[in-house]
């Protein structure tokens, strides 16, 4: 191997120092399938013991890697088996205590978030799924670090419209129970179509049933690096832009791969995947919207935005796929509104609307993410937004999701502050024309013809 040149060392340091290159998260997935019990208490004791035993050194190891390699690792997280699967063996009706147990385990291990207060109901509910979903508002209101997700659609199963209708109400209830903090409970709740089983990002992370006992998944970041790379080639054509993005994505992902392997070695845990996502933060120079603007758009949301995002998303995957042996999770560009300074600006000045964001979710990695809407938005309207997003995911064989916050007491133009990585969101205008007869039909939208792939 040839000697590393000084300019290469300085390039890496510049990416970290000036362009906010970091590892967004090391997430340890832990199976709780052996923690079922007829007694809820016994089940929760097993859960607490297993999580604190397996993830006891997670934070410490991540900090050591951060120091030795000089790369910031922003979050350390845990994902667990969807709790509906674990809790439903017990005779309990109320699963909130399971969420509190996860919260205590998260506090004990020192992680930032724990994901998996979840249920998969794309084709229908089990008794456990029903109980868990009912408990989501209180679970999120009475814990700090627990994240929840519900999968309501897949390409193979279609869309469970009963669950769509219910999740509209659950989101409203969650907002109501966390009124004092701007409805922050909803920022920890994601409704999915085609949810991946190995996603390291929150709030949607859980440890899927096809996963091993425990696993290390890493989510990368680095919108600033991509933006700087495009800045270096003003006026050049899209072939050149795609090439620049691929090169940057490759370099970013190589770091993710290194960190993932190092973390799994130190924690004696299988390496799962690197999630090739461009994850923005509210900090300046860490915005996906600014990448799109760097391509020549006055503001994110201007005509051309969807095409720009399609190019970005594809080039990130192409560059990243060459850099890692195992790729998974959500992998692509995230477009959360409140977590991205450029998106926030674009909404404030009227360039970016909910409908444009919906179009963008056809070509980005996830969906409508961290969208603040007026507090009086009805449950049916929220369900309609979820149904539309689920349809996009179902028909296009991709993951889509909705993380929407009907902010109690706020209206269009107000700003809700969540703080930290969750940022601050301008409350967006929603189309309030009625849809309750549509939502109240219930049942299941059949799987599309392209689900028959065998």
């Amino acid at each position, binding site marked *: *191997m*040839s000697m*590393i*040149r*000084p300019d*290469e*060392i*300085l*390039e*890496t*340091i510049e990416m970290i120092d000036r362009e906010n290159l970091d590892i967004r998260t090391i997430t340890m997935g832990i199976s709780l399938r052996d923690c079922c019990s007829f007694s809820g208490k016994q089940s929760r004791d097993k859960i607490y013991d297993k999580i604190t035993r397996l993830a006891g050194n997670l934070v410490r190891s991540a900090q*050591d890697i951060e*120091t*030795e*390699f*000089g*790369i910031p690792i922003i979050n350390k997280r845990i994902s667990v088996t969807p709790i509906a699967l674990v809790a439903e063996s017990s005779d309990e009706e109320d699963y909130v205590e399971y969420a509190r147990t996860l919260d205590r385990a998260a506090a004990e291990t020192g992680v930032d978030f724990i994901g998996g207060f979840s249920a998969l109901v794309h084709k229908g509910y089990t008794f456990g799924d029903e109980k868990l979903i009912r408990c989501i508002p209180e679970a999120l209101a009475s814990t700090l670090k627990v994240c929840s997700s519900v999968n309501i659609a897949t390409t193979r199963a279609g869309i469970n419209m009963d669950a769509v209708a219910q999740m509209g109400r659950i989101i409203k209830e969650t907002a109501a129970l966390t009124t004092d903090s701007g409805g922050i409970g909803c920022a920890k709740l994601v409704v999915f179509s085609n949810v991946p089983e190995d996603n390291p990002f929150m709030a949607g992370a859980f440890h899927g049933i096809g996963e091993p006992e425990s696993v290390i998944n890493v989510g990368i970041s680095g919108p600033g690096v991509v933006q700087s790379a495009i800045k270096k080639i003003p006026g050049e054509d899209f072939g050149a832009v795609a090439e620049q993005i691929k090169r940057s994505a490759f*370099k970013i992902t*190589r*770091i993710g*791969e*290194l960190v993932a392997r190092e973390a799994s070695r130190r924690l004696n845990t299988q390496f799962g995947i690197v999630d090739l996502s461009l994850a923005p933060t509210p900090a300046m120079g860490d915005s996906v919207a600014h990448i799109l603007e760097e391509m020549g758009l006055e503001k994110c949301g201007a005509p051309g935005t969807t095409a720009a995002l399609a190019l970005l998303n594809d080039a990130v995957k192409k560059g990243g796929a060459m850099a890692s042996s195992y790729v998974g999770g959500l992998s692509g560009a995230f477009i959360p509104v409140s977590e991205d300074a450029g998106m926030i600006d674009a909404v404030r000045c009227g360039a970016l609307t909910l409908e444009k964001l919906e179009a963008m979710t056809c070509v980005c990695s996830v969906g409508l993410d961290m969208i603040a809407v007026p507090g009086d938005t009805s449950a049916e309207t929220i369900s309609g937004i979820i149904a539309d997003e689920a349809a996009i995911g179902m028909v296009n064989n991709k993951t889509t999701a909705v993380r929407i916050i009907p902010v109690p007491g706020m209206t269009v133009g107000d700003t809700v502050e969540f703080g930290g990585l969750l940022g601050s969101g301008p409350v967006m205008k929603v189309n309030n024309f009625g849809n309750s007869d549509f939502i109240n039909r219930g049942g299941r939208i059949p799987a599309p013809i392209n689900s028959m792939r065998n």
Partner: protein
Amino acid sequence: MKSFITVIGKDTVGIIAGLSAILAQRNVNILDINQTVMDEMFTMIMMVDTSSLTCSFSELSTLLSDYGKGAGLSVRMQREEIFNTMHRI
């Protein structure tokens, strides 16, 4: 185990001497030094062998960065793998 120490800042007398002393006391051997002045900024890159360190990596890392702060320099130490991984296939 090899690591790179990168020093960036305004050139002053005794930077290398100061850092070398810290390294020698902790049994770190200097393998190579490269220094340049770019845009009036002094940049020095030192390749060192940290396999026989007599303290922890993070302690040495903190010592170096504190020394740098005292002299108005940014000093960091990183294991070589991060650069190899990013720039060599």
